[in-house]
């Protein structure tokens, strides 16, 4: 709280023989001996505490007393206190004049300092504004041009063990708070009743993170992975964090699956203060701080009620073609890396192979598909080898021949899905307006700015095409 209304006093130190002449009401005048008595004596040094001293007004006698005390001389020198010599036997006016001079000196010094601080503030403000503008531009570019928009940091698999979501369930997070965006927890068996899973990101000790509380609905019968998405990716400095979960509903809370046992209690989940022997089965996703979460695929999302779904295997489609980037600069740091990127159809496995590049997404265009009122397309994805790093996959669909460059394809892709080596998953694209006629599938993979892409066997297995009979068809 600002308490400028009652500022601490300002002191003047004067020789013992003149201190009584002080007349200035706003300045407390202390005699040299009284002032010395107020100093803290630490043996080898004197310490001035909580006192603003204008300076010293000393007569010759006072000078003599000061010089006889080397510790006091050292303190005055360190404080750089001005010393005004006044004549022996002065009158009150002399002391007043000296006091006013000291006040003016102090005022001048204060104003100068203030001006310097203002100049520094102005410079900082200018820098801040420029940085904000640059940041926003960079953010837009990163968000739109680079894929993927999120990254899976941890993936602890589900086991047969579980804990009920009753009371407060606390899962310590093995990653720093900055940029955390979403979590998957695993409902162990069919949820017994309808309700909501409330969650927040909190500090182990201290207030929860601001704006990091949300809830997600659960229907009776739901099971498997449930995605908990924060309103925005966590900003601020990297901090230690916990995920707090609770059940909001009238009925029985579902049970959450546990990951394999951990030897480290600091990773284990706790329920109402009792620590279990394993963490929750958990996926942790990160994005750019302060960004709202991009749409993530929800496995529990229902298909269009009156749609028709058919499957298309890669063998039914045309030969995939890699879309070029019109501008393809290479970062200096990666120039010597033998990058490898290729698009192929593997007949024996019946898959489309889209090997990612370390520079920017690789997009394969697969022709040969004719659709009627296509509303959604999904694909099964897989990383074929263990000896690589995580890869992001995305899928899109465009009218045949309408996209011929990779940078044009990015805007038509669905959400990016990230897999760990050896994992399976799926990608999807839901169309705002249904498509009809000949279309091209866009299959994209990416691991940008990762300085390693050997064995990155990114495979698209098969596609599910769902039509929508309710809306008007777009003419191709």
């Amino acid at each position: 709280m600002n308490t400028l209304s009652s500022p601490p006093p300002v002191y003047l130190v004067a020789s013992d023989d003149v201190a009584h002449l002080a007349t200035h009401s706003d300045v407390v005048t202390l005699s040299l001996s009284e002032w010395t008595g107020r100093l803290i004596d630490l043996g080898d040094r004197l310490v001035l505490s909580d006192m603003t001293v204008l300076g010293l007004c000393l007569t010759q006698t006072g000078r003599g007393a000061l010089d006889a005390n080397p510790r006091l001389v050292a303190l005055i020198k360190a404080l750089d206190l001005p010393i005004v010599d006044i004549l022996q036997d002065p009158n009150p006016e002399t002391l007043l004049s000296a006091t006013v001079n000291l006040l003016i000196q102090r005022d001048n010094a204060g104003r100068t300092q203030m001006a310097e601080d203002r100049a520094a503030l102005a410079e900082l403000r200018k820098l801040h504004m420029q940085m904000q503008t640059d940041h926003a531009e960079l953010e837009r570019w990163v968000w739109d041009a680079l894929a993927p928009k999120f990254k899976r940091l941890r993936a602890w698999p589900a086991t047969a063990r579980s804990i009920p979501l009753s009371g407060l369930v606390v899962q310590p997070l093995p990653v720093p708070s900055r940029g955390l965006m979403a979590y998957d927890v695993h409902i162990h068996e069919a949820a017994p009743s309808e309700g909501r899973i409330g969650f927040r990101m909190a500090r182990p000790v201290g207030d929860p993170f601001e704006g990091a509380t949300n809830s997600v609905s659960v229907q009776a019968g739901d099971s498997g992975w449930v995605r908990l998405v924060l309103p925005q990716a966590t900003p601020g400095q990297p901090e230690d964090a916990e995920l707090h979960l609770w059940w909001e509903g009238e009925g029985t809370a579902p049970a959450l699956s546990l990951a394999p046992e951990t030897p480290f209690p600091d990773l284990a989940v706790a329920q109402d203060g009792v620590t279990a022997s394993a963490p929750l089965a958990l996926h942790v996703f990160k994005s750019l701080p302060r960004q709202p979460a991009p749409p993530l695929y929800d496995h529990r999302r229902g298909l269009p009620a009156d749609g028709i779904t058919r499957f298309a295997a890669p063998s039914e489609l045309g030969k995939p073609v890699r879309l070029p980037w019109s501008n393809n600069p290479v970062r200096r740091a990666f120039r010597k890396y033998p990058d490898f990127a290729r698009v192929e159809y593997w007949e024996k496995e019946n898959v489309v192979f889209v090997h990612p590049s370390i520079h920017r997404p690789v997009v394969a265009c697969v022709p040969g598909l004719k659709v009627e009122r296509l509303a959604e397309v999904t694909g099964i994805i897989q990383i074929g080898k263990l000896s690589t790093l995580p890869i992001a996959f995305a899928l899109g669909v465009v009218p045949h021949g309408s996209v011929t460059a990779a940078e044009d394809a990015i805007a038509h892709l669905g959400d990016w899905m990230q897999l760990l080596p050896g994992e399976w998953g799926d990608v999807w694209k839901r169309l705002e307006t249904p498509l009809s006629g000949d279309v091209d599938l866009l299959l994209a993979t990416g691991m940008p700015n990762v300085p390693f892409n050997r064995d990155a066997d990114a495979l698209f297995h098969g596609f599910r095409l769902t039509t929508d009979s309710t809306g008007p068809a777009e003419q191709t």
Partner: protein
Amino acid sequence: MTPDIAIVIPIYRHSALADEAISSALALEGNLDHVVIAVDDGCPNVETRAALDGWARHAPDRFHHLHQANSGLSAARNTGIRFALSKYPALRGVFPLDADNRLDAHSLTLFEHLLHTEEADWFYPNFDMFGLQSYAHNGGRFALPLFAASNQCEAGSLIRREVFDAGVWFDEDMRAGYEDWDFWLSAARAGFQGAPVRQNFFRYRKRPESMLSGSHDQDTVLRSVIQKKHGWLYDKDSIAQLAAQQIPRFACFEGDAVQVFTDPADRTDSDREALIHQIIKGRARPETEWVHQNWVFTRPGVIDLLSRCKLSQSILWHLQAGLMKADIAALRVVQDPGGQRKVDVTIPAEHPKNIAYDTPPNRRLWHVDNRTYKRDRSRQAEVLEQADVLMVSRDMIQRLGFPDGTDLAMKGRRAARILKAASVLHVRAAINHPRPDRSGPPPRDMLEQFTRDLREHPHVNGYVLHDLKPWRDPPRAASAKDIGWIQHNHGFHTAPFPIVTPPGTRRIGIALPIMQFGGVEKCAVALAAALKRQNVQCHLFVYGNSQMAGTDWLFEPFETVHQLNHPLLRDWRGGQYLGTNTAAPPPTHLLNQMVGPLLSMDAVISTGSAAIFHGLSALRSKRVAVASWEHLVETGGYGRVYGTPYLGVAYEGGLDRILTCSKRLASWMHAQGVPSEKLVPLPNGPGFPLDADQVAAALAARADRPDDARLRVGFLGRLDNQKGADRYLAIARACRDLPIDFSITGSAVIGESGLSVPPEITHYPAAFEVEDLREAFARLDILLMPSRDEGLPLTIMEAQRVGLIPIATDVGAVSEAIEDGVNGFLIKGSPVVSQMVALLRRLATEPGLRRSVSGELGGVDQRWDQNATAVIDALL
């Protein structure tokens, strides 16, 4: 306001950055009250005082500003803390915050939590750095041995006021840096403990040029200051002892039993599953999880047998030290056919490509080395198969337990390849006892089974190990995985000797070049026994290249027996000092191996071990008191005197004390220039143990002997020219007419002249066991010693103890043991033979004279106890 926490911010030159620190400190939120105390340490920037004036007006209730002449960071912190403690007597804790660092807003809430729930005395943060941004965690639990290697606690820690109340402050003389490390060490010395805080709360501004960087430049100098100041932590083997408190050094599998220990004399039962669990944890988080350094697989009974021989510590040391040169150390125990003891170490041969040749090897030399290597590899395989004990390091266990591979079969094949390629160091222990049956599974199989269990353990397969690591990087400070090299680094680059002693235990090491049945060895044994009676542990170090006697009673008073067997330890080609050869300087690694185990001692007494003089400065740097024990100045063929007392004089400056076997030798050494304060005479006493009942029985038996019985005169020991062999024979001849039986117990060949013992002199074999020695003295009435040169022979005191009458020439320090006509007879001047014959004639005919002299102990039975007291006073 009665604040609970004071945040003390010393400021010097950080005029602008201090605003960030003050602002972050004032912005803390929580239930506790806090004050911020800024200390202007004579900052030359006017801006500092202007800023503090401003902050005082901004928050007058929660902000204090102090000003002092520049006195350094420590003094500034002390000033602020003293002010806080005196102004706010109810203060609970202090947080020193450097002016360029920051606190997170939730810190105060966290402080409250820590003060309420944790028992530690100070709480230190992770290394969360901004500027040069990095995040490193603060390691595992607080452990002093790690702290000895590097500072893990940032000065920005929450400190309970009790630390300062106990008189622990920042050292104001340490102005160049590391004052915080010194402070934590002082706090630990005072019995306080730190605790790492897992949650972030403190942000450290890391700049390329910071004061800490400057102190890192002076690291060596500052470390030496710290080490000198905190001898309680760095001296002797303190770090190894503290490490043993953290985690036992050895995990041992013996049949189905599993034990953990540092000292094999103090073993604790463990279980296999717990150890597997420990290794897995150590694999996932090597910086925070403690894993036993060495893993031992042994046949049943081997360690116990070695313990009975007092060799278990020595053998474990050899095995552990061997792991610096090999992947696996193997022990084979055999029974020595000669009943002796010996420990031999064979280092695995290097492949020629790994040998550092002085000059490039020619083809022939290369092939010779290659053949040696191949032969040695096949020998190593055999050693591995037949070992009684195997020891491998933690790293080797992890290599075998976590090999690369996608499936168990591949991992198994890779582990087998690692084991096959491993180099094996061979330790061979010959002992004077039958070795135990080779029952139980072979250690190699046990090792393979254990690592297989590890690979196949469900937890290893279930965990994704890297996912269990903390999100912060490992600390750059020493951590749990470094405990081995820390001990190595502070123990002269060798393994610490595996003994654990409770605080307050006093330990003396006696170092000898040879342990046979000589007088010097018996003195060492007798002194050790007396020291043991006065609650001082004695340890025997045999540094030479010979076997040790297999006589068990010689080792009885020692807690452990350690042998280092190397020819260079008895290499006397180091140049002469006043005509006496000194030891050649041993190579560094050998010197380290010699000196390293001695760090476990409070004091070391070296007697005859000249090589050890080269390690004097090393031992003294670790504040191990070192004494040389001198026994005899010998006379050479040309009449020139020489011997180890000259070496005592030569190295006097590096010795804390010089012990002498007699007052006469002490005078001699004083005359050679040794200060009398440094000399501690330890007049010899009896050389083998007899308890009071045995002594009383011997005296009673002698008193019961009839006065007219034939007189029994004899000599015990090695009778050579120096001992007056010719004189002894002449005396025997001259006394043929008297009722006297002459005998010799010991050598059958007299001296170098080749004279044989005539048939009228009875010859008894040499006695080694106590019972044989007692019997040898019991069959004599008079001990005859017509020596030409002597020190202070033990036999005289042994004789006096059981009522024998010693008759000896007055040479060396014999007169210190015999008071003529009181407890023996001294023959002064010449002719010796006729004087001795005349005396024997008197004694044969005057039983009253015999009775008056026999049994006069003259305090010999107390001699070693008095000597032990003198040693304790001088060295401990």
